[in-house]
């Protein structure tokens, strides 16, 4: 199971956040999906259904764009990290259209996001063959064969 970081636009705050997550989540390597409108699998790993993604949203218009392209984020378990401190009903109604697992904003947002992401990663049940699983399958195959 992978942990990704993604935002629509680039900024100094984005880089700061990414560094902070790398620092406080050493047990879960975080992969930067880059910036832009498309989510393309990075070379280092394959995006899998159920992967956790922290989506950083700095401005309202970014959220509007993300809602328009929400199908691209459909297979992820999403945590929204919102820059804005004061959120009105419109913000929330947009956020809800992305069906996030958690919305973090304000004072403790980064710490909360890290705790939730970490808990999600622990609870995820990957079914892809890890090298250990693969070796086990092979050994089992050998025994049966």
């Amino acid at each position, binding site marked *: 199971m992978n942990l990704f970081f993604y935002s629509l636009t680039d900024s100094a705050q984005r880089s700061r956040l990414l560094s902070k997550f790398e620092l406080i989540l050493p047990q879960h390597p975080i992969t930067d999906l880059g910036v832009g409108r498309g989510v393309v699998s990075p070379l280092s790993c394959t995006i*899998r259904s159920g992967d956790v993604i922290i989506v950083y949203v700095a401005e309202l218009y970014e959220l509007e764009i993300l809602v328009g392209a929400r199908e691209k984020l459909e297979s992820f378990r999403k945590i929204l990290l919102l820059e804005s401190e004061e959120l009105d009903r419109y913000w929330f109604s947009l956020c*809800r259209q992305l069906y996030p697992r958690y919305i973090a904003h304000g004072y403790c947002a980064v710490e909360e996001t890290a705790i939730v992401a970490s808990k999600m990663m622990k609870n995820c049940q990957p*079914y892809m063959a890890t090298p250990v699983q693969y070796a086990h399958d*092979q050994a089992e195959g*050998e025994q049966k*064969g």
Partner: protein
Amino acid sequence: MPKNILIIDDDKTLCLMIASLLDTSGYDTQSASCLNEGYEIALTSNFDIVMLDVQLPDGNGLESIPRFSTLPSRPEIIIMTAAADSDGAQKAIESGAWDYLEKTNIIKELMLPVTRALQYREEKNKIAAAPVILKRKNIIGDSSAITQSLEQVAYSAASDAAVLITGETGTGKEVFAHAIHNNSKRAKNNFIVVDCAALPSTLIESNLFGHSKGAFTGADQNSSGLILHADSGTLFLDEIGELPLETQKKFLRVLQEQRYRPVGSTKEVTSDFRVIAATNRNLEEMVAKGKFREDLLFRLRSFHIELPPLRFREGDIPELTHFILDKLWQRQYQDPKAISREFIEYLELYDWPGNVRELQQTLEEVVARSQGHQTLFGFHLPGRIRIKATQANLSNKEKATPVKGKIGPKSKPLKWKQYKEDMESQYLKQLMAYCEGDVKLACEESGISRARLYELLKK
């Protein structure tokens, strides 16, 4: 139109008494003295009710409930017994019987259950006659297992009662929760997801109920909470089994009264929401261990939908595969590829312990591996799937043709050449699946030279 009732009992006097009572009330009755005779009569006419004795000369009536309830007319079953006991009653109800009556008072007590069963049947037929158009986004397949689940979705969407969705991990509980919401009268309002497993106990209450400014360190403004966000909509509690006991108690009160107090607030807030909960854990076991509140379970289980694992959804894998692959190719900006029959056969032979999610993850890996290829072959699948599928295939073949290639005392042996070729072919398939098509590795593992291996593969 008079209603048809079939009475199956070997006590002919009782049959006559019941028939005469029902006949005078305007029903058409027929009688049979054993199960097989009763079944034959049942096939000739559309019965609304079958009254079934338990102890019959050719079998047990309780065990025959499914046989009769699945007749084309889908009759209601009323069990009659001379020796009523609680186990029998439980079995009858679990098997779908309408009622379980003691013979001693049957003449006195019969009319009420018969009238009710017929009334229920009439209403059921009216509902069944009205077409239901169900929005089933992302629910793919037409197997009988998934069709049954969709019927339950339709029933629960029509009501406003709480729904508990259970099923193995990866069966699509959230997708079904969305379907219930999207088909309900609350569809235009919010669908709020609460991931109970992801929220630490320190965050869960303030998230659910909201908090007032200054309620705790960091609460520098009022927060409305997810329950309020779900007002007029649906609150989906995923992994409800992970909800802490203390929060369960508070949430139960919210469900009962639709009112609650945000953390640190003195004012009560109301929210009109519908709750759908999901879990892959056995909540009854958790109740027995004191880890889940029984009263909350009863509240949540007004409707219970148990989702079938993928291995029970016969025939759904090809359609699901096409659907998932189309979405993935679109997402990855790739052109669609051809899918070989062998690719689908491999997928169908695997047992998918991780269900639809595992299938999706497997296909995601296939899409990543197959870039530049025009057709998907079994070879593109991960080794563990090909190995298990090959093994399943071999064991199926062994079961189907137990004598082929084996030397049994009475079986005619194959020609040596034929036997050797069969075994060689089987060995090569297993070898190449094990080595994921890597010829170098295959040579190392088998001890066969590269040239010889190519020669054998060519055969």
